[in-house]
């Protein structure tokens, strides 16, 4: 033993110490297991979302439906297909039969339209990959939000040019790409013009993707900015 070194006394493994050691070891292991589960829960709940700590590319859909063609080029309103958005909680996706009202005769040269017709002929439904989803314990009611932002004489607060930007609202927002509209204008806002508040400029997306986190913080911030109630039971009921 070197002089000056501490006299390290090796602890004799008495029965008490062994038991204490084992208890400490078991507690540590237990803590690590619990920590592992908690981390697994948190991480998996994030990974299972379309976005992982950021904004992903939109997923491939069974039919590559181009919102660009339908909204930008043809000028169709969102509410033409998502018919329930002003009426109830769910915006609803259109039935295959609704698509076929046009595509019986339109789009003969498109492979995607051919897929659609096949679905229709076989009487099958289309399982679209869901992009926007809130957890089961959250109730999001589309019609209430649409009614809040749309209507007559709304003040335009901000216009949107970048579909990826997050925008905070006060009264209403003109989301359409329309160069003639400026913040501060008083406008009558159609239902279809406010979808973009949460969904971004879907009209310009060839593949729809999520542009806002749609996590609780996002909801609460928006509610506060718009003087909407932010009590728990507003969404968790």
């Amino acid at each position, binding site marked *: 033993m070197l002089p000056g070194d501490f006299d390290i006394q090796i602890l004799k493994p008495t029965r008490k110490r062994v038991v204490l050691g084992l208890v400490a070891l078991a507690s540590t292991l237990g803590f690590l297991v619990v920590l592992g*589960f908690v981390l*697994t*829960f948190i991480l*998996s*709940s994030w*990974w*299972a*979302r379309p976005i992982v700590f950021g904004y992903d590319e939109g997923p491939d859909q069974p039919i590559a439906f181009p919102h660009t063609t339908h909204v930008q080029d043809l000028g169709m309103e969102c509410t033409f297909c998502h*018919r*329930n958005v002003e*009426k*109830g*909680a*769910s915006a*609803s*996706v*259109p*039935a*295959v*039969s*609704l698509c076929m009202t046009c595509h019986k005769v339109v789009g003969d040269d498109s492979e995607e339209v051919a897929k659609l017709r096949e*679905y*229709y002929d076989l*009487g*099958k*439904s*289309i*399982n*679209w*990959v*869901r992009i926007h*989803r809130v957890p*089961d314990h959250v109730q999001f009611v589309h019609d209430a939000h649409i009614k809040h932002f749309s209507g007559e004489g709304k003040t335009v607060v901000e216009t949107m040019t970048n579909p990826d930007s997050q925008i905070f609202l006060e009264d209403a927002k003109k989301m359409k790409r329309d160069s003639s509209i400026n913040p501060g204008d008083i406008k009558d806002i159609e239902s279809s013009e406010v979808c973009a508040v949460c969904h971004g400029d879907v009209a310009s997306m060839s593949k729809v993707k999520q542009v806002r986190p749609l996590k609780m913080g996002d909801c609460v911030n928006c509610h506060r900015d718009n003087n909407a109630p932010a009590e728990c039971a507003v969404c968790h009921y």
Partner: protein
Amino acid sequence: MRLPSVQCVTIRNENIMDLTRRQFLQMVGGSATGAVLFAACGVPEESRYINSPHQMPEDLVTGLDNWYATLCRQCTTSEGLVVRVVEGRAKKVEGNVDYPINLGKHSAKCEASLQSLYNPDRIDRPLLRVGDRGKGEFNEIGWSDALARITNQLQILQTQNKQNGFVMITDPLSAHLGDVTQRFVSGFGGRHLQYETIERTNISRAMKEVYSQEIMPDFDISNSAYILSFGADWLNTWTSPTRYMRAYGEFRQGKDRERGTLVHVDPRFSATAANADQWVPINPGWEGILALGIANVILSDGLVSDSIRSSLSPDDIAIIDQYTPEKISLDVGVNADKIRLIAHEFSSHAPALAIGGGSAAAHTNGLFNMKAVYWLNYLVGSVGVEGGVIFNPEPPVPSVGKYSSSFEDFRNLSQEMSRGEISALMIRGADPWYGLPEDSGFRRATFEVPFIFAVSNFLDDTTAMADLILPENDAFEDWGSDIPDPAPGYQLIGFQQPVVRPFYENLGDELGTKNFADIMIGLAPQLGLDLALPGTTFTEILKAGAEDLWRENRGSITAADFDSFWYGVLQRGGWWDKDSKYQGTIPSVSNVPNPKSPKFDHSPSQFPYHLIPFTSTGIGDGEGAFLPWLQATPDPITTATWQTWLEINVYDAEKLEISEGDVISVTSASGKSIDVLAFPHPGVPPGVLSVPIGQGHISGGRYSEDRGSNIMSILTPNVDEESGALAWAATKVRIEKTGEWMRVPKLENTFSEFPRDENQHIIKVTPDESSSDH
């Protein structure tokens, strides 16, 4: 001592890289738990997609619910319902607040009707018998083939000129379906019998003979001050319980009125008895004589008005004079003072109401019992007045009588079947094979019928005997109408509309289910019958019926055009006219019914116990046994579920050393026996045994078959000779312990822990009470 440990270390070193069984299991368990937890934290697979349906009608929007008004066909008196439908699927049933029968309330049977729609044992395609009759072996067959076979069989009868060899047995039908059935059967030249396990023959006969009414009157319970009921468990199962229960709430706690008094006379402690101010246990079958005893007190003590007294003939008074309380008290089993007290209270609380039914109507003198009970209403001036018996008007559309055929009719039919006189039997919505006593001969006789076809959703005991089974739409998938019996004192017709598309329509035209009336309408032209119906489908017939109502321009819905009227009717679940009350005369006091004592054929020493079967709260008389929610609906008295039990007096049980759960063999004088679970109960009079009806099905699906015992099968087929009704409460039995034991499935704990009030017993029935009275 060291040697073994050294060896141990050595072994460990050798196997250090090996995986022990324990380690392997730990790792597997750990990784499985991890996988489950990881998966559980994620998004469920079905939430990753949004389904874009092939077709989307307006009522199929995701997340939007629709409420459709329709009728419950599980209840004996159809109740008005609104059904919540989400994305084309029926989800929840609620009472229709507009519908006059139930005014927003609904029974457990209505609630469980969803399970009929989604039942895993539903028949989804026509079936043809392949094995021996009754073995339950069937093969799939197309609708056109099935209907061709029926047509063929019925055409043979026509060519042989033996149309009277065709018999149709259905549940009691009314309104438009009753009309179509009547036209089909009479057009063909056959016979139509309406079957109910608990028939209403004696009550309907009593209404006719006492009140000259063809239609069941309404009992104005809510406005009554005093109700004296005999045997009818009207707060639980009898006739129209939801309506009566609602009225009972008014009767007890209605605004601006005194609390009504309820006295219930019954050999069984039923839910109505439990709610009564006073339960009067009576010797079974003596209810009519007790009613005469009460009449005797009312007359002799001058409790009757002069006008009523003067309308009684000397013969009537002479009959009543014979039945003094002292004279009858021993037979009836009720103390003379108590009879006097009841008579005084009954006559001094106007309006008072006497109601009878249940086991009181099911003795060899059942018709007399009913007549005597309902006759009491004359004596207290409660006929045709508020708070008493209110007569019902004729129904708004022509309707066949809803009353069931009598037991005698079925016994005669069984004999005809045995003699080979019946060539084709059609069954719909009725299960006589289950409900008729084995000694009636019906079961044996079914083997003698060459062709049986059943229209049924489930393979109940009768359907299982069929050669051909045609599946019917569920009530929630189908059109219909119903005239409630009894109506609420004015004209009412309920309309039933489909709330969902037929569940099995995707099986194509050849398979799946159909409407019963449409089957008959389809068969008629093949058989050369002209039914002279106002439409080619049942829906058209219903609409034509509604159009007649629209033209009358009165009642709950009036409209400028028929379409608005029709939508109004469907939205409100029916049509009624509160001003269309009974217009006929109130009959003057009828003659006192001829007294008749009950007969029990068998020696008391051999068969010492009275057997009082009773209708189950949930599964009724067995028709609801295939619905698990009804199976699990606890009996209000015992809280028992899912089984057949035997309510026996606690002292009787003590004497025989019977305790709860002992498997008891009950043997009737017919020599048949069943096994049931003992349930000693302080509310059963000594010498009386009560057993619920409804279990013991041979077939009927996973929830009903091979469960409990069928009490109806062992009954001795005694009848009331005057009416031909089955005296199902007149069977005497003996019991034996089998030595087996099974836990009674019940919600409540044992009765030994029942809170007792030593000074004021809640239930006072001991063997000593009745003996000390006499």
